[in-house]
């Protein structure tokens, strides 16, 4: 039953991917200079969604995948969050729907945002550790195999991978809940709680609350979950090393003289990173940045913001003033 369903979803995703690729081609053809990178990103997100979906059921693949991402993040920042993560893609789709409806996002006030920046490691640690504590109380000798594959109570250990799991988040979560099938398919954070509190009514309520909250919050705030996602924060912690000179691989670089502080970079950032705006030139030091490069794309001053990869400029802000006719 599962295989058939997954097959249908897979086919649908491939179809959507192809359609989006078509949009991308048309867009580039129309020379909309402020959106080229955004559409490329969308395309890559779809491709990675398909890729992850294929490797999804194979635990070893996931571990390998995770190791590669973690290693690359050490040098280049949270590109995973902006370009690969399926949950991020899902949030981008919600943002697109919101744009279509002509509703503006909300923004966290500077004070809340600042507090969140300081607290997000604490929040992430709490989310990471709490299932482990509960899990430690229930270890039995029989669960050794489960431990090996990070299954059962040890599932929380692969929280690093958790955004990879709920490919179509509300749906698989809800399905697992309704059918009471294998928990490993349901939404990870609720699942860990659900695993220990095995009362059907409580679990379904919890799951729907979680799904509802993520949906509504993402509709209101851009990329809301990214701001304290445990995976993201883990990657952000790895990303901190990027500040060291010995790993100057991927950086957003700012030329202070060209900046007129127009504030566009600050406004377009989906996770409200202020460093690009505030920092006085040089490589931007922030662990929050998702590397979506929207700021570089939207900066209207030639060469003011640059994306440097290994010391070479791969993308830079341009005088994009050719108004878009799309959207």
């Amino acid at each position: 039953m599962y295989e058939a369903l997954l097959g249908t979803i897979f086919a649908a995703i491939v179809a959507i991917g192809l359609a989006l690729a078509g949009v991308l081609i048309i867009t580039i053809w129309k020379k909309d200079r402020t959106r080229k990178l955004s559409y490329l990103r969308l395309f890559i997100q779809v491709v990675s969604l398909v890729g992850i979906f294929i490797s999804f059921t194979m635990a070893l693949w996931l571990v390998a995948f995770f190791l590669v991402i973690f290693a690359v993040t050490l040098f280049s920042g949270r590109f995973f969050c902006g370009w690969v993560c399926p949950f991020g893609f899902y949030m981008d789709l919600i943002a697109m729907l919101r744009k279509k409806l002509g509703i503006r996002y909300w923004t966290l006030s500077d004070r809340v945002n600042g507090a969140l920046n300081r607290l997000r490691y604490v929040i992430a640690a709490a989310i990471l550790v709490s299932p482990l504590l509960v899990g430690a109380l229930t270890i039995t000798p029989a669960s050794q195999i489960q431990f090996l594959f990070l299954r059962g109570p040890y599932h929380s250990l692969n929280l690093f991978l958790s955004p990879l799991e709920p490919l179509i988040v509300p749906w698989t979560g809800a399905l697992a809940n309704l059918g009471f099938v294998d928990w490993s398919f349901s939404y990870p954070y609720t699942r860990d709680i659900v695993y220990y509190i095995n009362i059907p009514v409580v679990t379904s309520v919890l799951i729907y609350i979680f799904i509802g909250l993520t949906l509504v919050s993402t509709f209101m705030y851009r990329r809301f979950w990214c701001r304290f996602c445990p995976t993201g924060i883990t990657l952000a912690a790895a990303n901190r090393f990027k500040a060291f000179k010995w790993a100057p691989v991927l950086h957003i670089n700012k030329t202070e003289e060209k900046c007129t502080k127009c504030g566009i970079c600050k406004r377009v950032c989906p996770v409200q990173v202020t460093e690009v705006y505030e920092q006085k030139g040089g490589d931007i030091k922030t662990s929050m940045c998702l590397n979506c490069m929207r700021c570089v794309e939207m900066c209207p001053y030639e060469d003011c913001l640059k994306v440097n990869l290994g010391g070479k400029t791969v993308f830079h802000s341009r005088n994009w003033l050719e108004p878009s006719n799309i959207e």
Partner: protein
Amino acid sequence: MKSQSAEKKYLPDMPQKEVEELNASVKAASERIMADNIERMKKTDPNRPAAMQYFDEVSNFFGMRQKEIQEAKAQGRKVIGYLCVFAPIELILAADAIPVRVNSGWYDTSKLGDRIVPVEVCPVIRSTIGAKMIDLSPYLELSDAVISTLTCDGQTKLSEILSDAKQMWIMTPPRVKDSAQSLHLWKEEIKAIKTQIEKLTGNKITPKKLKEAIETMQKATKAFRRLQDLRKGNPVIMGRDAMLVNQMSMWDDIKRWTKKTEALCDELEKRAEKNEWACPPDTPRVIVTGTPMFWPDNWKLPTLIEEATPQGILVGDELCSSDRVLYDPVGIDEWTMDDMINGIAERYLMASTCPCFTSKDGNEDRVNWLLNKVKDTKAQGVIYYVIRGCMLYAMEYSRVKKALDKVDIPVYYLDTEYTREDVGQMKTRVEAFLEMLSARVDF
């Protein structure tokens, strides 16, 4: 609109006959000066671009543009004047009104302004008052309302004085840019102005219309930047010509202006290919910064620079009457009404390099702008132009000088008045500076 019979708080009740006489004489003098200025520009660059012909026509205050606006007004369109580049042009365009800048550049009227305010006051302010007293400026006369931004003390009181005769909409820009509350205040100001504009014109500013207006301005910015980029290389156009083009963007129909400027750029590009320069490529390159200069009378300094021996060329400026007008675009991520208003608010406040701002790190924006401009245009010297009474620019001089000294660019502080009497003396000063610049090149 405020009725004319209401008691005037500042403006004197001048006899109609005197007003008419003064108007006629100043207007005649002004027409002569405009023609003379254009004649001299033609003489400086005998090979002047043919596309400049159009801008010469528009630059005539009492010519075709005045008639056009009159006709548009007869058809029910509203005209909204503005005294400062802080006024949100996009909102005016979105309401199908005509934006025109109403600052005055007439020397003669500044003497009339002396009757109301003391001579210590900035001549731009005095001249604008004088122009109103004798109903000289056609754009000020035609405007249904005037947006005034309280950037300096002069502007603050000017809006009060002009309120005797015009409906004034006053906007307060915060004096600090980089704080959340000042942006909030400015956003509210923009929203208030939007309501005012909607009320006056009777047209609702819909997201669709606003988007169109923003895109119109983006296209204008594109053409504008193209012209500035062309000035970075060998001199394809004299600085005065470019300045005239830039300034006309504030008075002309912006769509037509964009088209004509693109045409001018096409012509200039062809010239550059053929290595036809407006003046010898080794002419000292100069940037002017400071108090705004307005057409037609206050064309003194650019004329002096480009007609001096040794000749200099203006490759750029940092004036809110020229290179700063259209440099920054409104960048929008999501085309919702709120985001567009935010974008407009940020473009006019944050990107401004007006010296009226201060900040805890010493208001670096203007200095950075200037340094970048010097680097981009390969300018060899900067003339810091201040008219007496312009406190903000005068006080920032030492800071700008220090920054430019660091990159080894000589700065010259030139102070003057709204008068033709000191032309001879200024000529000596400018020529000495230019000679020093060309001597530096020779080394």
